[in-house]
């Protein structure tokens, strides 16, 4: 009976309303007018922020290094077009907080002139390590939204001797079609990127997984992969969150990634189709990651479309291009409607993680009228991670964060499936994000107080030691004095 939860390959999930047809039938727009100014944050990836290597006033070419990666897990950023650096300062980050982040501002000169680079005739003659280096130098990060530096992942795959490279073409978020269009229009380049990645990781086989609501993309990828028997293209059921890497790994391989481990430890590495495309550009054309395809969609967008834009383009420029109606826009989201972040305003730049920008009307949003939990357990049955969202939320509401952690708070992936199905409109993910932050803050506070206590203890011990030393010295001094006086007296007596 307990095996009910055991070996099933897809667990939980929902079939959310897709809204993909708004943009899935139109070609990627490449006529986006080059913005006058580009705002390039030095951190567009997981890891340490990059360090600027240019000065204000410097002339740069497209693809030129602007900021150098720092430490083991980091990624550089490059000039998305040619022009002059006019500022390196703090500007709002494309994040719900819009807190300031170090940003390089580039005034474009309109020439869009690439930096010359030396191309390799055959990337397969390069050593795998060299592939990683070049991918790292091109600033490539996971393009599905996770933005983990790709080179680090290639190295991990190589070190763990993985057998399968999974290419994620699920694109399970509603509205988003940037991967769909990329696969339809640039399948050969993606497959080439996959081959290069296989070489870079010294892995044998690749499987491209595409949700079955994208038959055109599947057909294009199938054709492109035909000459390469070691690359298979597979259709997977359309069920959010199929694109969650660990769900996809379980579906394709039947294996689960242990908590606290990376997927390469079970012999699998997963990359997004957009990442494979970026790898192709970097290795074949020597181009750094300076642009991406963004889905601009939603009920408030008059001309919804996928558009290729330079990184650092302001969302306001995108909205002008796609004609967004401000009067009916109720929420602006970066990413998809399930996991995306709502943004406070639109003077924020497109970054490497920006798969989509949605301008949604009130009727497309979930009702905010929160009602009591009726314990219908829909959240339990849809949770892909096997958690009990209703009990976790209950504990958090009662400020019993430890109980929520015991129920698996740290295993929550914030996929939003529970919030999506909740008939009482309880913002479950909001509770979990709050609690995770709070737990982390408490741990830090505890760490700090322990640190302080340790320092205090050290200081007390040191002071005690010093006092003891002084006492001993004093005692020794007194003893010596007494000895001296005794000797003196003895001498006097003798005299």
């Amino acid at each position, binding site marked *: 009976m307990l095996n009910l939860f055991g070996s099933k390959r897809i667990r939980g999930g929902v079939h*959310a309303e897709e809204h993909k047809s708004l943009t899935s039938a139109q070609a990627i727009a490449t006529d986006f007018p080059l913005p006058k100014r580009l705002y390039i944050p030095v951190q567009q990836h997981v890891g340490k922020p990059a360090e600027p290597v240019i000065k204000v006033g410097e002339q740069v070419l497209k693809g030129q290094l602007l900021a150098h990666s720092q430490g083991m897990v980091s990624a550089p950023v490059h000039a998305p077009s040619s022009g002059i650096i006019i500022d390196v300062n703090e500007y709002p980050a494309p994040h719900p907080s819009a807190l300031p982040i170090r940003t390089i501002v580039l005034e474009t000169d309109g020439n869009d002139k690439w930096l010359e680079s030396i191309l390799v005739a055959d990337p397969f003659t390069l050593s795998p390590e060299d592939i990683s280096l070049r991918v790292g130098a091109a600033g490539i990060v996971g393009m599905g939204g996770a933005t983990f530096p790709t080179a680090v992942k290639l190295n991990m795959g190589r070190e763990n001797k993985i057998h399968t490279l999974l290419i994620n073409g699920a694109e399970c978020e509603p509205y988003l079609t940037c991967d769909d269009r990329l696969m339809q229009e640039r399948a050969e380049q993606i497959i080439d990127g996959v081959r290069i990645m296989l070489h870079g990781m010294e892995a044998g086989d690749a499987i491209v997984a595409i949700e079955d609501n994208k038959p055109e993309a599947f057909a294009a990828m199938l054709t492109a992969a035909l000459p390469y028997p070691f690359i298979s293209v597979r259709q997977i059921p359309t069920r959010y969150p199929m694109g969650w890497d660990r769900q996809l790994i379980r579906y394709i391989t039947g294996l689960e990634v242990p908590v606290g481990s990376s997927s390469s430890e079970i012999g699998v590495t997963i990359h997004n189709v957009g990442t494979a495309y970026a790898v192709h550009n970097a290795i074949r054309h020597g181009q750094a990651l300076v642009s991406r395809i963004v889905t601009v969609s939603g009920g408030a967008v008059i001309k919804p479309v996928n558009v290729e834009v330079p990184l650092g383009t302001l969302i306001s420029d995108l909205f002008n291009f796609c004609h967004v109606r401000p009067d009916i826009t109720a929420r602006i989201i970066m990413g998809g409607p399930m996991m995306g972040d709502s943004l406070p305003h639109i003077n924020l730049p497109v970054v490497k993680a920006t798969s989509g920008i949605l301008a949604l009307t009130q009727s497309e949003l979930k009702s905010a009228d929160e009602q009591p939990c009726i314990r219908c357990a829909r959240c339990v049955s849809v949770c892909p991670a096997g958690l009990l969202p209703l009990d976790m939320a209950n504990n958090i509401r009662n400020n019993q964060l430890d109980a929520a952690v015991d129920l698996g708070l740290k295993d929550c992936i914030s996929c939003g499936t529970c*919030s999506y199905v909740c008939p009482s409109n309880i913002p479950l993910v909001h509770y979990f*994000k709050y609690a995770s932050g709070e737990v982390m803050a408490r741990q830090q506070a505890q760490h700090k107080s322990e640190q302080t206590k340790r320092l205090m203890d050290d200081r007390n011990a040191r002071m005690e030691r010093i006092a003891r030393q002084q006492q001993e010295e004093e005692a020794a001094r007194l003893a010596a004095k007494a000895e001296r006086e005794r000797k003196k007296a003895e001498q006097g007596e003798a005299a």
Partner: protein
Amino acid sequence: MIASIKLKMASGAHAGANTSVSEIMTQVMLAIAPATVLGIFCFGWPALNLFVITVLSALLFEAFCLRLAGRLAKPVLMDGSAILTGWLVAMTLPPWAPWWIGVVGSGIAIILGKQVYGGLGQNLFNPAMLARVALLISFPIEMTTWANVAPLFSSHAPNLAESWAITFSGIGSFGPVDATTGATTLGFVKTEFSQNRVLPDILKDYSGMLDVIGWTRGSLGETSSLLLGLGGIWLIRKGVIQWHIPVALLATVTVLSSLFHWSDSQHYLSPFVHLNSGALMCVAFFIATDYVTSPNTPAGQLVFGAGCGLLVFVIRTWGAYPEGTGFAVLLMNSATPLIDYYIKPRIYGRNRNGKPIETGHIKQERKP
């Protein structure tokens, strides 16, 4: 232009499935409506009186409690849960029961069964079953006086005026109680067993088909196993309830009754009689599946359903009461927190003890 956009910030998911609490309640009401309508048709105006009184008093008690708590009554009443509770209480009552049975039943269900715990979603026991059991123990005569089938507009059915007399002055006002009432199938069998009669003889006049359709003595809305079963299946298809509890419950009763009936058909009722009598179908699909008082996980729900089925069979077969569904559900309700504590889903990447799972990956030899 663009700076004037008024934006609301929120965490995901920004989109939502189009279900609401009131919609779920409405769907359950739709599913029980056919059986209720049939019950009202079979037992006439007195049944309608009782139904209306019970539902209205449930609403009044709910509003009263909300006012006591200093909350606005209207938005909560609109969620439909109080109507549904009153409705379910009415379905479990003998159709010609006096008005105060309905009022007391609703009062127990809403006040003691729901609001004292803090309202919707907080209660430990199913409110309707709590009311049913409390009434059965407190008022055994009224709760076991079963009107004969007397369909609306038929010659021997009470007219509107007579129905008011039945509801407000008791069954006796309509005629000799012996002539207008009788025993339910389960009650009859239990009494006859005590007279040392055996089954084929006891049930020689039993017509199974009438119990399936619902043309038989019983609670107001519980007589038709067919309509209740169809309503339940519709709810499962709509995704309002899961199949685990009804299937486990009905399967357990079927298996147990088959085993005993097969070994001694003189003293143990057949699975057919069990499935089509009393409150079993109603409880299996509409009471035991109550979200609030049943376990959260599919495995937990199977355990819960099987437990209910086992208790129903035990109480019916060896207990003092002919029908045991109310007690069975309440007992299993009390076990629900325990079931939920012990049966939890396995978290991705962890084993059942919460430890990370072992990897089977052996680093491959590098290809030459």
